[in-house]
């Protein structure tokens, strides 16, 4: 198993939650101090470099109009990391291509990072969380169709080397596509896609990309990975290797369980501070109609309720947080691993909120020294 260090680059110095009704979309940026923000950017880039020195891979994501994540352009921060690192694989998970107006521009940015890093880019595509809809002004309906058209255009742009091709699709129009640079890796950087539902897992499985699950817990993850595998069986495609599956959790390893829990409680800032009103969590058409109906009836599965009132015990029981001393964390990861049929990538959300630099680094060091060697044996 490979482990990836991931940080949302949050701006954690928020006003009293009573002062605002949403941390996403509409929290005024007067609450953001660019001088503090600059220090934070440099700190987080330093932490990614430390992750590389320790032998971890690097993961970056992007969100928009939110204090929970100050990377509205994953390509920009990854451009800096491509120059500042030498050996780590560089995962962007991912580019919200259903919300980007110009897929060709995404193809260019990703090719640039790939060349800059001499072929270390792993390129993720995500649909984006519902709060991204208003920030991008993009229609929440028929997003899958738009997503896959953007994907098709990007892959074609990466793999066409004989001059311009024409694209007049349903959503995107480019009559002269001919990107410079082309990607460093042949035929193109490995593709990852976040899959949170069985339907999207089937699409990802058909194409053999890496499917990543974020905080989906035991049952959600099992369903998604299972759909990926069964779709490949249906199509009589080769069985997917473990490296086709990734799971993201909040992870903190301490010397004792108590120290691990204390670190994890600080990581939970990400869930606790995620105050978002319903008009931004459920834009019409984003969720399947049946889940909207369940939400109206108040019968959505417990995992949704857990996000509304996060507590460490239930989050650990559900497999969203791995925390404690090294043996405890190893056991928790293996329990998830066994339950979902195995996975080859652990995406470690290892910094959030008030977890300071020293604590962040200590959590990484403890993981690398005490847990990672045992996980690396799983191939």
């Amino acid at each position: 198993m490979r482990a990836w260090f991931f940080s949302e680059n949050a701006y954690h110095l928020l006003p009293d939650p009573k002062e605002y009704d949403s941390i996403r979309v509409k929290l005024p940026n007067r609450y953001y101090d660019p001088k503090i923000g600059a220090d934070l950017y440099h700190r987080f880039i330093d932490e990614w470099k430390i992750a590389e020195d320790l032998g971890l891979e690097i993961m970056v994501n992007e969100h928009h109009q939110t204090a929970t994540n100050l990377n509205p352009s994953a390509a920009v921060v990854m451009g800096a990391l491509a120059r500042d690192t030498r050996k780590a694989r560089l995962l962007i998970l991912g580019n919200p291509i259903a919300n980007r107006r110009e897929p060709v521009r995404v193809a260019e940015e990703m090719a640039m990072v790939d060349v800059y890093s001499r072929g270390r880019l792993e390129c993720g595509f995500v649909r984006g969380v519902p709060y991204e809809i208003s920030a991008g002004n993009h229609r929440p309906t028929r997003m899958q169709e738009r997503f896959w058209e953007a994907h098709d255009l990007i892959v074609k742009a990466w793999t066409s080397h004989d001059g311009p091709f024409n694209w007049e699709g349903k959503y995107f129009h480019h009559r002269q596509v001919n990107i410079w640079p082309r990607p460093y890796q042949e035929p193109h950087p490995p593709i990852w896609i976040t899959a949170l539902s069985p339907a999207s897992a089937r699409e990802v499985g058909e194409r053999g990309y890496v499917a990543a699950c974020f905080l989906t817990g035991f049952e959600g993850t099992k369903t998604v990975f299972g759909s990926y595998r069964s779709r490949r069986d249906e199509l009589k495609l080769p069985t997917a290797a473990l490296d086709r599956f990734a799971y993201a959790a909040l992870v903190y390893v301490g010397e004792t369980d108590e120290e691990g829990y204390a670190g994890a409680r600080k990581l939970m800032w990400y869930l606790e501070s995620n105050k978002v009103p319903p008009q931004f969590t459920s834009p019409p058409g984003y969720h399947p109609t049946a889940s909207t109906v369940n939400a109206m009836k108040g019968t959505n599965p417990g995992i949704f309720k857990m996000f509304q009132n996060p507590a460490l015990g239930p989050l650990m029981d559900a497999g969203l947080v791995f925390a404690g001393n090294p043996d405890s964390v190893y056991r928790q990861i293996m329990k998830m691993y066994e339950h979902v049929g195995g996975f080859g990538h652990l995406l470690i959300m290892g910094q959030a909120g008030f977890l300071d630099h020293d604590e962040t680094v200590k959590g990484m060091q403890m993981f690398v020294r005490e847990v990672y060697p045992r996980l690396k044996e799983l191939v």
Partner: protein
Amino acid sequence: MANDRPGWLNVHGVTLEILERGQGRPILWLHGEDGLDPAAPFLDLLAAHGRLVAPSHPGFGHSPDANNIDTVDDLAYLYLDLLAERNLRDVIVIGSSLGGWIAAEMAVKSSERMGGLVLVAPLGIKIGDRETRDIPDIFALPPDEVTRLQYRDPARAALDHAKLSDDQLTVIARNREATALYAWEPYFHNPKLKRWLHRISVPTLLLWGADDRFVTAAYYGAAYRGAIPGARFETIDGAGHFPHIEEPRAFAERVRGFLAERKA
């Protein structure tokens, strides 16, 4: 009430749930973002004056999504096709809000089969400058605030989800999804429509709830009136953005008056 339950209609490959009641001169009712509730009292009141034809737009109610229909422009052509396929003439086309926008787009394209047009607080035009939000953003406002803006008496619109069937809840969810499909961007308008409204050559009545806080008669209504030559403008007291729901009798009476003036 004859033909009380909705039936099905196919227009050039597009399947529509459709409600038809009454006899006489054809009246095409184009619902707004609130969808079509077969039990709404105004439907029978309208059907007393003619043959009411009321489809649910693709994606609304129980009408299936149609793959290649995703703009109001598409809906306007779809309903012009419906009038042609049925060979209807001298039709009174009535639309509310989103439906008013569809009706206006139809009339701009062709009023050949229309005898008159009734636009009930129609959306669809851009009035102010680029930083003026002419129409409140229903997708960014708390749901209660949207209701407060759209109804004179918001309590009337309050729904107890626990008392509704799965089918009713599904229709509510689908209506919101379909509204987003047609009206997300540009937001509830066609940037070019105002430019072409002068082409509307059939008698036109603009009806507005006097207490419409969503798009006011004084601002949005006045702009529509100024853009359609000879359009008559009337307000309905005691009603917000959906006067046919809040004041169905007064609403039907205004339509009856308009019909009486243009007896075929």
